[in-house]
């Protein structure tokens, strides 16, 4: 993202939320239809943003169309509030949406924009999650024609996708998809849930919060409404499994920073080339750490 972008000032300042009101209305209408047709990739006219596509323009357009002065925004990139992308995106919103609060604390946020992760702590009905999507259509791997894919989706015809999945499983003897696991919404449309790990896929199911997906390059918006069935595609003989964080002794690995044994862990190598594990959700890690310190302080 180009943080030195200069705003067009020919019209006495820029609009709240950067996008003009027509662009926002179009995104808003599209969001409502996306909720009415759960999992359907609803097309819209994506506007140019002052950053390259692929930097989350689709997610940002959703956020800017949703946000108002009553909102508190949290931006996360791969679980972290502090990555360059998340910081730039947050600054962009602060600059273009005067009056909007920003936070790193999940419980304070009304709007959460994220890339690659769903927060560890369950979202609530007062929150909306916006996920950035690079590749919205799970059928691309089996059908190159978009016109034919649209009909396959509408008829919920996923037989070829299932065959492809099964072939991979037979070949590798397990489900090797680490991210973007095809997930069926409301027993009809199958979505690409964005590059979240398998760990996060169950959080889509019966979520109290609305979850929106924005693909800027492909100009698509789709939704998993609250309290909606979201099922990863599976086979009877090979059930869906989330990532396994057990070590060679069968012991669940803990975060080296906060000690959590119930979070999605990122793997790093330290200076001595020894593997260390840490919560991918940095705000969750901070929260766990603060709780421990509080308890120790009291003891």
């Amino acid at each position, binding site marked *: 993202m180009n943080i030195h972008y200069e705003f067009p000032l020919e*019209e*006495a*300042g820029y*609009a*709240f*939320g950067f996008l003009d*009101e*027509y662009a*926002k*209305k*179009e995104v*808003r*209408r*599209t*969001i*409502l*239809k*996306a*909720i*009415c*047709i*759960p999992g*359907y990739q*609803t*097309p819209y006219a994506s506007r140019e943003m002052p950053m390259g596509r692929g930097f989350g323009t689709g997610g940002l357009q959703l956020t800017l*169309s*949703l*946000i*108002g*002065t*009553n909102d508190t925004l949290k931006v996360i990139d791969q679980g972290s509030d502090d990555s360059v992308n998340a910081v730039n995106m947050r600054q962009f919103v602060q600059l273009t949406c*005067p*009056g909007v609060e920003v936070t790193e604390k999940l419980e304070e946020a009304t709007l959460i924009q994220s890339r690659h992760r769903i927060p560890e702590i369950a979202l609530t*009905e007062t929150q*909306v999650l916006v996920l950035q999507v690079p590749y919205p259509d799970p059928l691309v791997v089996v059908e190159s024609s978009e*016109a034919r894919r*649209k*009909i396959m989706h*509408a*008829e919920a015809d996923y037989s070829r996708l299932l065959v492809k999945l099964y072939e991979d499983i037979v070949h590798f003897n397990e489900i090797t998809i680490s991210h973007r696991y095809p997930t069926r919404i*409301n027993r*009809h*449309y199958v979505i690409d849930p964005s590059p979240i790990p398998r760990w996060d896929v169950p959080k889509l199911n*019966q979520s109290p919060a*609305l979850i929106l997906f924005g693909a800027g390059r492909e100009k698509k918006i789709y939704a998993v*409404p*609250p*309290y*909606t*069935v979201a099922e990863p595609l599976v086979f009877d003989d090979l059930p869906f499994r989330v990532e396994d964080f057990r070590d060679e002794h069968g012991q669940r690995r803990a975060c080296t920073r906060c000690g959590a044994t119930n979070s999605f862990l990122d793997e790093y190598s330290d200076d001595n080339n020894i593997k260390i594990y840490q919560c991918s959700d940095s705000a969750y890690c901070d929260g766990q750490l603060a709780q421990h310190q509080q308890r120790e302080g009291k003891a």
Partner: protein
Amino acid sequence: MSDIQTPRASHGAWLSPMQQQIFRDLLHVFSYPGRVAECTADSMTWLALLAALTDGEVTLADPHGLIAADIWPKLEARSGTPGKATFIVADGGRIMDFQPCTGSLESPETGATLLLRVAALGEDLDGGVPLNLTGPGIQGNTELFVSGLHPSWLIARAGLAAFPLGIDLLLCDERRFAALPRTTHIEIGEML
């Protein structure tokens, strides 16, 4: 424009901060079918909702003549027939006498959004007909009470087309509104 400096100075449905608030309420009622939102703008509910949604990109049909002539330019929408328009505003108390667009397999989003004016609605309402609702956005089931809605709208809605095709309803009384997206299954109960 001074919208940025005075975000809450006016309750006018034509100002962008109010349209943002109304949109968020629309987002809420479509996300949680059957829940009722309060319209905070100082105009008729259906008109405030239209103001938040329409511009020159959409077609709007008004088969019952609810929209005053001087309002049309403000909505910016092109006038359409009830059979083709993306938005339709109608008197829900009257019998449904047209066939709205339900979209196509390739583009189910072109199924119309209908704003229906009703006498009253609420999550609890004396004299209202209970609608028992199930589907996405609803934990188990929920009830919405409506009065002044001709049953033909609900019957037609269920019979028009199979998912993903369909129409999406917004019920509006004087001050409140609720949504019935095409995914919501409705059972009409006995009036209390």
